[in-house]
């Protein structure tokens, strides 16, 4: 990061600090019952993620980093506390409203890619658009664009089993950005990849952040991956360090 950039960022921050915060987590507690025992995974956690940030969450197993990510992405609900994303209290949304919100707001990247094996790359990317009113032709055009962005324009009609792990993860990233979400969440996106593919995927995420201004929150335990993020946060025992 150059000095000029840092300066510009600082300036913008001071101009409209509150408006720039995309995610605001306040006093979040998450407990699980397991075998009659209550596990306190998150314990009164506060966190702000600014719009356009690329943040990495790190921490040992069981530190609560994945739980935090799930809460931010609206996959799970906090036991206590509030989560606001883009000015919306998502901890208050009902099951179906939350699903719709996820479809509109979040792009998901999983460790094991989770592409549907019966669909081609293009069809996998089209999937989130089926929930919108976008016309079929337009859906295909957008999905093709997304795949071009991830550098797979020559693999549109391949099935997941015909792709390498790195390519599969790039298709998953294309799927995550196709409906232009406000936030991309990535859970160990390089966990199942070799070094070289991991580098490619991380460069892609970086490019999405820098060039397209996507806000990204990524859980990882790979220091090399965390290095690409603009902010690295560490969790331990349900608290930010």
């Amino acid at each position: 990061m150059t000095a000029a950039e840092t300066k510009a960022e600082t300036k913008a921050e001071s101009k409209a600090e509150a408006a720039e915060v995309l995610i605001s987590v306040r006093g979040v507690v998450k407990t699980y019952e397991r075998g009659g025992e209550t596990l306190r995974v998150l314990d009164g956690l506060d966190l702000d993620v600014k719009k356009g940030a690329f943040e990495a969450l790190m921490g040992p197993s069981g530190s609560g980093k994945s739980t935090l990510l799930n809460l931010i992405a609206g996959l799970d609900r906090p036991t206590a506390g509030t989560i606001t994303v883009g000015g919306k209290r998502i901890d208050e949304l009902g099951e179906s409203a939350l699903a719709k919100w996820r479809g509109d707001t979040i792009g998901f990247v999983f460790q094991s890619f989770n592409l549907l094996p019966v669909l081609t790359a293009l069809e996998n990317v089209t999937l989130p658009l089926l929930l919108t009113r976008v016309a079929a032709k337009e859906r295909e055009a957008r999905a093709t664009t997304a795949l071009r962005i991830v550098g797979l324009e020559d693999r549109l009609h391949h099935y997941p089993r015909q792709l390498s792990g790195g390519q599969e993860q790039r298709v998953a990233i294309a799927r995550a950005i196709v409906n232009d979400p406000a936030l991309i969440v990535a859970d160990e996106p390089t966990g199942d990849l070799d070094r070289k593919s991991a580098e490619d995927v991380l460069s892609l995420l970086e490019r999405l952040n820098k060039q397209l201004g996507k806000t990204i929150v990524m859980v990882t335990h790979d220091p090399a991956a965390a290095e690409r993020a603009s902010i690295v946060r560490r969790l331990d025992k349900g608290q930010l360090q």
Partner: protein
Amino acid sequence: MTLLGLAARNVLRNKVRATLTVLGVAISVLTFVLLRTVVGAWTAAADFAVKDRVVTRHKVTFVMTLPRRYVDDVRNAPHIRAATWANWFGGKDPKHESEFFATLAGDSKTFFTVYDDMKVDKETLERFQQDPQGAIVGDVLAKKMGWKAGDKVLLASSIYAKEGDWEFRIAGTYTATQKSVDRSTFVFHWTYLNDGVSIPGLKDQVGWIVSRVDDPSQAATIGVTLDKLFDDKEVQTLSQDERSFNSSFLASVSAILTAFDIISVVILAIMALLLGNTIAMGVRERTTEYGVLKAIGFRNGHIVLFIVGESTFVGLLGGLVGVLASYPIVERGLGRFLEENMGAFFPFFRINPLAALFAFVLALMLGATAAAIPALTASRLRPIEALRRVA
């Protein structure tokens, strides 16, 4: 690509399982159609009854006879256009004891006028009427027994015993104007029977009287008027329109019809179990995928639609294959065999298109309902649980 397209693709994912399930559903549909066809064949006689015919029989029993002179009383009654009569002869070819066919002693002048759905050409009828021992047989029966016009045929009767056998000459054959008419009946002169009867009590007796009325809508009322004629005579009668008469026999096969209904329901249960099992297995294997779909914003309803769509698609394929297979198997194979060899029991063994359509719709609907439980279970899974269940 649409959601239902995706559902269809999931079906074809496990080809062995999909093929087996479709096959299982198809066989269930085929069996269902077959059973409904058997039931239909039994009830066909009532369904295809001629509307302007009234049957008069002994009031208390089918097996007892009426005096011959009752026929004239019926003929003179109002609204009666024509009347004839017949006796059940209980005939058997002593050389082919196991072949069952109906043998009737009828009035040679009027029988084929009243039963005009048994079609006889003019020359055959004349030849029959001129020969006191003449007989007209159904074309299906003639073919099966190898009888030709002019052949001498010997029959034994289980009712009208005689020294030696009864001897007949085939005058020709009749065909049917309606599919439901039994083409395996043997008809001969009532006078030949009456002259040959040795037991005095069986002389000048007729089994039943059949008349044609001028107003079919009044058939029931006319029947009541006929019965009044004989109210004070030595034997009372019961007259019914042909439909009621034919369907009154259905009570005697009611147990079989009930059994077939139960078995039909059992088939549906087997089909539902088959479909439900297949879908449940597929859903369990794909739990993670449903988790992904939910994560990227698909709602519970989408997931249900998705799984139900998958199951309905299997039901559709199975139903289609089953119905398509049932036509050649039931109609060409079994139906033809039954009509030719057991025509007396199954003169009309054909699929009712409505039954086939019903079977197809049932396969579809069972496809949809069998998926209900797996679909609900899958849709209620929270996305993070579903995602965690990596196989």
